[in-house]
């Protein structure tokens, strides 16, 4: 610990700084004097957009060591002018939530508990089931012999909370597979 000089004694500082009653400069600790906002200490700031409603407020995402440390409004945005509603302001808690699930969870048919499953296996199982469901409910023609060329065995719901690019690939893939039952929050 560095030698605490006589000149730094609070009483002395009271007299030196003119802080007679010892309510200001005389009582500040080094910790206080070193204070800096973590926005300045971030090693990366990403320009992003709020994931909640459709106003599209700009968000600045501060991160350090690969973890998000702060999310607040982007003052440059002509839409939001740096402001966020309570949900947007809580985005950091959304992305860092301890309740978030980060591994694959699997429930087998008639199972009573969740189980672990590695991602690679899960993805392969899903691909198999996709093709099987597609096959089982394939409809080549309708009752009048007109081409349908589709499957009703697969359905999908969701899209308003994922990216445009993701919706594009989803629609592209599913349509090519003949899976027409795609829907999202817009229908609700």
């Amino acid at each position: 610990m560095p030698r605490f000089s006589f000149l730094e004694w609070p009483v002395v500082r009271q007299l030196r700084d003119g802080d007679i009653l010892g309510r200001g400069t005389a009582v500040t600790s080094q910790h206080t004097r070193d204070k800096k906002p973590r926005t300045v200490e971030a090693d990366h700031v990403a320009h992003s957009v709020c994931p909640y409603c459709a106003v599209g407020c700009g968000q600045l995402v501060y991160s350090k060591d690969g973890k998000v440390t702060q999310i607040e409004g982007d003052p440059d945005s002509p839409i939001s002018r740096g402001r966020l509603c309570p949900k947007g302001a809580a985005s950091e808690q959304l992305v860092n939530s301890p309740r978030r699930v980060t591994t694959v969870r699997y429930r087998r048919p008639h199972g009573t508990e969740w189980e672990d499953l590695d991602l690679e296996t899960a993805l392969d199982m899903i691909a198999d089931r996709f093709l099987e469901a597609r096959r089982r409910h394939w409809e080549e023609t309708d009752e009048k012999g007109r081409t349908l060329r589709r499957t009703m065995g697969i359905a999908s719901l969701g899209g308003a909370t994922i990216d445009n690019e993701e919706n594009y690939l989803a629609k592209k893939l599913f349509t090519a597979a003949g899976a027409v039952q795609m829907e999202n929050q817009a229908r609700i």
Partner: protein
Amino acid sequence: MANADCIIIQGSNMAEAHPVGFQWVMEAKARGARIIHVDPRFTRTSANAHKHIPTRAGTDVVLLGALINHVLSNDLYFEDYIKAFTNASSIVSSDFQDTEDLEGLFSGFDPETGSYDTDSWQYSASQEGERVGDASTFTGRDGSHYTSGHAGASEAFGAGGPPLEHGLPERDETLQDPHTVFQILKRHYSRYTPEMVTETCGISRADFDYLADSLVSNSGRERTTCFAYAVGWTQHVGGAQFIRTAAILQLLMGNVGRPGSGIMALRGHATIQGSTDIPTLFNLLPGYLPMVSVGEHDDFAAYTDSIGRSEQKGYWANSRAYAVNLLKAWWGDAATAENDFAFDYLPRLNGPAGTYQTLMRMLDDGVDGYFLLGQNPAVGSANGRMQRLGMSHLKWMVVRDFSMIESATWWKEGPEIDSGELRTEDIGTEIFFLPAANHTEKAGSFTQTQRLVQWREKAVEPPGDAQSELEFLFDLGNRIREKLKDSTDPRDRPLLDLTWDYPVDESGEVDPEAVIAEINGRFESGPDAGKPLTSYTQMTDDGSTSGGCWIYTGVYADGINQAARKKPRTEQDEFAHEWAWAWPANRRILYNRASADADGKPWSERKKLMWWDDEQKCWSGPDVPDFPADKDPHDPGDTDAGGPAALAGNDAFIMQADGRGWLYAPTGLVDGPLPTHYEPVESAIPNPLYPQQSNPTRVSFQDRHNLNAPGTSGTHQDVYPYVFSTYRVTEHHTAGGMSRWLPYLSELQPELFCEISPELAEEVGIEPYGWATVISPRAAIEAIALVTERMTPLTVAGQTVHQIGLPYHWAQGTHAVVDGDSVNDLIGMNLDANTQIQNSKVTACTIRPGRRPRGKARQELVEQLQREAGLTLSTGDTRVTAPDFPEGTHPEDIDLSTGETIEESFDLPAHHRQGPQSPGLSEDGKHEQGGEED
């Protein structure tokens, strides 16, 4: 919105659902604008409005129709504007009969199918004996017609609706001919009087006058009024027509295409706009092209013609180009002129395949697998019980989300497990929960409610197994294609020929910019091969260009991600064209041609936006012209050419086939060319305007779990004497997946509550902040009662109507910070025929003090009330109540007991087609099991 002189917020609670957007309303208010909030409840929006007008949910057409009547009867409309820009002068076929003639129906209704043949709604042509037909007059190759009048066939057409053959209807510019749109409009709304508003909506004369005066005094050359709406309009049977009524009113007042005008659609999710533009929806392809429907689009020519005929005016005439570009983007070299660009690779629809139709199919074991991509239908979709029961019929589900949402845990916990209706061990549904990357862990774009495409930068890597949907889908596609690679089955060609070759970085992640570049489009051949397109006007229909979504063309112009531009607002004007990119072509105010008069001069200096620069021979102004930039205002248009060239110099509404704003819609809506008031299905109020009680085209599902309250039919209307409406509160988000898991949000609104008036509380005996149980014909839930004067009883048609408010964010589960009952369990599935969207805003119920029963007793209480009300499968299904049915058809000719709905055409299996004698509802009220498999 900040430039509006008056803002009418109706069907929206903007301050609570779009708080940061609401700053612009406050900005307008600070500049002196008048803010009016029309809503059944006094909300945080009302607290900041100048006036709150309480109204009965579902009666918006009466209020807006009365405003239309008011401005028409008193000559308060903006005459120069409607003459220049609307179809007021167009003449409609003399076969057309209005609701005034047919007791609430339009001509062409077919009670068998529950749909309209829209032939008689069409314009008259300028040649004697001809008609400007709609697609129903077009003959397909094998003689099949477009069944544009067929209810539910809205999915057969894209956003432009069925086309007009050409854009030249007969006109009477004096607006006197009784067959002009103008006169038809007048007549249609002639009984929508202020007295009718008081009678139907419960709005006082003083409040109506206030609203009317506010609108009128803030419209015209010098002033503009803006409407804002959200799901308070869309979530109704007839919701599309509610919006149409506002559109008609705004057109009459000259409030479209001008600063501070228009109708602001306030959508609710990060990229819900994007997810309809680039749609994960059953009925659309990117850019609002329709999915192919069997019998409607028998070949590629029929398909493109159904979207837009090359002879019609405006930009839909180029439908072939847009479709070719999409097909080229998807199937690349396999899409050639010889094979109609792989048109046959597209699967066909034969009726609606919306989420509720799919649910019915699930209950019949017709669906094996279900992907949930960030949506929570167990809580967020109507009729939550059926949603969860439906999931128990699936073979497998893939749930992609951040946390254990209720749609992933329903097999283990939830109302059906509590009651024993479902047993965990009996449920065979295999479930994969795949953790999803959040918005900071992936780059990509959202499209905001005002069509603004904004790019997000990636901040950090996703943890553990979490991956983006982009990565997941790309990988799924790769696996599927790998597994099928040796297939010789022609049905697999679309998958194998798909362009599926996106660049990945070192960590295996797909480059999202490559995807948006594909969406934008590029030159496929010629000297510019490989270069991105700059505008959809560059799209050709010969395969030399490609583009995944024509309305987005330009977002990647010059190889620059325009959506990622972030020039600070302080360095731009208020349009901020260099912040992100709006479709189409970065235009910020649509139809801005209408901000100038027929001669191209601004209507006033104060409301100046775009104008014709006669020296430069182009349209000028701070926004991108939403019009051919060099088209003279006096250009008569080259009608032989079709397309944009056919537009006249004052055809501001460039997407319509006649270039006009439609006061009357000859095509595009399946339940009428003019909005008409119908009572919601469960309403106990007889329709004050017509004998036809409810919307005759509505989509309904007969099911033991989807019974309707008696409404005005039958007796025992006292079992469900009240109505409730659902809504959001600021502190939470939709079905709770992104808010109930957060302590900071959960503590702000921890528990499910209902809002009731002090009068209702007294009538029923509910204590302030005490428990209350709300029971509908489908379910029972409990909530803390907020007794507040913000809810007011209304006097409607001599009755007192009590409306109850219920926010819908909570669900039963053990994984979130807070839980509660799911309000959407109460709501039944009754859909609008245009959109397949359910009614969430007017549901019959009763309310009583105290908590609800637990376990089996919960649903037994529901069934007890069903019995008391004498509910059967066909309750509320009477389609036509107009006694003198047109064309000599009498109600007794229609077999109402089977309640045949248009679902017949969709060929669903027998599950839901049970009549009253079905085993579904037995004497002692025992419910049937959902029929779990395996």
